[in-house]
């Protein structure tokens, strides 16, 4: 091959490689794509199947994003609902940016992987997206209006952020981890349980309920940029918010906004409770205190606040402690042929606040918590941990990975104890709180 051909080949190879890697021919027309940021799944209100709500981000020329919700009703599967979304709205739904899957309470009463397996089968959704259960329906939760964020999915994602996990207030789960738990020997998992709590009315609040259906034409008012866009063909490809209420196929599409009301009530999302699952079904609910104890003992939480009551100078006083976990360990051993599960926790605590006025010297020495407070904290921690493990064991949920430890580290005993280890294991607590002296 002469030099000319070599040069031609090299140039052609370079250009073609560029095209090969750059996805140059696969550009997405943003005007025709529904960017789904959250999916809510409920059991059908009427009939069988599921009501699937997609929260769709709407880009705005002002830079402040907003979102609209589209609900496809009575879909037999989540996949069918996503397809239907395309039929109903004319927009092609892209799930790449879906960061939240919200399960309505009723869905959690049956095996949730009846609906979640769609996201495992479909690589269009990253398995790093958050999964949560919610009180009531996912549709209503996604319609709630956060006072700090226009898009409710973003507000929920903030509540479930890794920072929140590190402070122990919520137990965050992503789809991958939840699926691993489900398919593991323990067949268990947990999801943060989100509830919407109505807060103070914002200024000029008109009292519009968060779940109110809003007229489609009225909603278009918050989409000036899209209305102005001449490339958008409203008849052929209607906006999701203009989706018809019903269709001939029998499925129904509802449309509402998660962000349309700039006035009215603002809602706060709480996720301090944790729903426990066994074989995909909800089996128990951990209280906020139990959730904190679980996080301190078993998850990435290293830093948290908690309150304890201790007696000082003959008076019951509430102390708010700032805790830093130095060491946490769970181990499964066998004593006299029976399983023993041991929690080892070492934490440093300092006073953050009390419920009584203190002398200035006491305020100055806030880094020091005296022994009575530390022992009270240890006792409280042990109580909450004990309560969490009992609740989980009674429900068959391998929340603390006892069965998994049995399988991994004590495989010989696995066959004998696989069905009983959760209830048969004796639990030891080796919890020590220290403070600066």
């Amino acid at each position: 091959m002469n030099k000319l051909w070599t040069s031609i080949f090299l140039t052609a190879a370079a250009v073609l490689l560029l095209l090969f890697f750059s996805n140059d021919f696969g550009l997405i027309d943003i005007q025709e794509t529904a960017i789904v940021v959250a999916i809510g799944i409920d059991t059908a209100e009427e009939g069988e199947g599921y009501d699937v709500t997609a929260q769709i981000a709407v880009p705005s020329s002002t830079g402040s994003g907003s979102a609209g919700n589209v609900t496809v009703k009575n879909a037999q599967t989540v996949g069918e609902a996503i397809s239907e979304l395309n039929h109903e709205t004319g927009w092609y739904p892209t799930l790449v940016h879906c960061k939240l899957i919200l399960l309505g309470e009723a869905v959690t009463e049956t095996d949730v992987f009846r609906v979640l397996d769609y996201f495992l089968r479909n690589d269009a959704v990253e398995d790093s997206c958050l999964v949560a259960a919610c009180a009531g329906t996912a549709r209503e939760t996604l319609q709630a209006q956060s006072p700090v964020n226009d898009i409710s999915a973003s507000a929920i994602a903030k509540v479930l952020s890794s920072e929140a996990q590190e402070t122990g207030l919520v137990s965050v789960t992503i789809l991958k981890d939840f699926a691993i738990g489900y398919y593991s020997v323990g067949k268990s998992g947990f999801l943060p349980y989100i509830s919407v709590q109505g807060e103070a009315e914002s200024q000029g609040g008109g009292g519009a309920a968060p779940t109110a259906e809003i007229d489609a034409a009225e909603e278009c008012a918050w989409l000036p940029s899209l209305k102005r866009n001449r490339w958008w063909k409203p008849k052929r490809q209607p906006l999701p918010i203009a989706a018809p209420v019903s269709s001939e196929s029998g499925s129904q599409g509802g449309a509402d906004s998660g962000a349309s009301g700039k006035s009215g009530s603002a809602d706060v999302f709480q996720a301090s409770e944790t729903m426990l699952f066994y074989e995909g079904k909800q089996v128990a609910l951990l209280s906020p205190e139990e959730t904190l104890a679980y996080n301190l003992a078993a998850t990435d939480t290293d830093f948290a606040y908690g309150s304890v009551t201790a007696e000082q100078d003959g008076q019951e006083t509430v102390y708010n402690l700032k805790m830093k976990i130095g060491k946490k360990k769970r181990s499964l051993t066998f004593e006299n042929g029976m399983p023993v599960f041991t929690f080892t926790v070492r934490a440093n605590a300092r006073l953050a606040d009390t419920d009584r006025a203190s002398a200035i010297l006491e305020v100055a020495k806030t880094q020091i918590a005296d022994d009575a407070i530390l022992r009270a904290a240890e006792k409280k921690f042990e109580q909450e941990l004990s309560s969490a493990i009992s609740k989980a064991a009674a429900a068959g949920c391998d929340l603390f990975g006892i069965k998994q430890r049995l399988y991994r580290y004590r495989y010989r005993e696995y066959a004998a104890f696989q069905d009983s280890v959760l209830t048969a294991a004796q639990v030891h607590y080796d919890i020590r709180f220290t403070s600066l002296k």
Partner: protein
Amino acid sequence: MERIKVRQLCFYFVAMMPVAKLLVYPATLTYQSKNDLLLSAFVNCLAEGAIVALVMLLAKKSGKSLFALLENTFGNITAKIVYGVFALFFFASALLPFMEHKNFVLQVMYENVPSIISFAPFFFVCFFACVKGFKSIGRMADISLPIFIVAFAVLILLAFPHADFAALLPLQGASAGEVLRGSLFSANWYTEAAFLLFFLGHFEYEKRASVKVIASYAIGSAAVLLFLAVFYGVFSDIAIRQQNAVAQISKYTTSFTSLGRVDYLFIFAIALVMIFRLCVPAQMCVHCLCKSFGCKPMLPAAAVNILLLALTVFFNYSFLELQTLFTQRLWFLFALFAYALPAAALLLKRRGAHE
């Protein structure tokens, strides 16, 4: 055209050999060997490492090409036939990696499902490499080494904090039969010894060349084992669904939430090295055809690449069947050509009748 240096062989084993095992191989291995995938992979690495050592011993003792050795032992016609048979083997062994890589590119790098033609440019690159011969493999190895080291290290470091290595326990959670089956059914990913056999006589055996090549092979194998351990640590019981493993392991780093998937930069870098590695069996096939028919590489290179493109299109919707065929049915062919025949090459006459 057909010369390669020992240094480049070493770089090949360190950088290009592991990338072929970073896509479908980990999930396939998990399917057979479950959490004992490392044992299966270790068996393969050990067996192939032994064959690599034997081939290097042959290189030390003879310094001749395989064709010359065959010619000495069986005559010219037989040597051409053997090369023709190996050409078929290399062609077959190129097909599954091509399909793997095509799926990887189309699934990971494209937002929507693109046309299969998006993968076609690869065949121009492969054609060019086939025409250029072994020298291009050496150059590709030179380029691949720094790219691979940086990209692989970053991806592993990003994935490491999310890996739970206890998921690999209990040891022997899978039965010995499952572990062995995992090894045998992944034979199609272990064809490097056959490649080395055809490099015989095309590199100058220098002092301690065997040690260098075997050490390089060990480093490449260690990289594969490390990747498998991290992969299973990250995905545990759902590892089996993770096709395109290299694109999956590093995506859970939380800092990406604000920056986006920065790891894609390194995945692209690995994909580039994969392209180089994909060309190698096709290049071997063309080399064998040239020797068999005594022709220049242009025509065989064109024919091989057109055929591979046609088969890639033909099997576009049959990857699973093709994978099952190659892994579960034809594993013995890979074992024969990549393990048994290279080892048997030691029995060939090292001196010709006239020497």
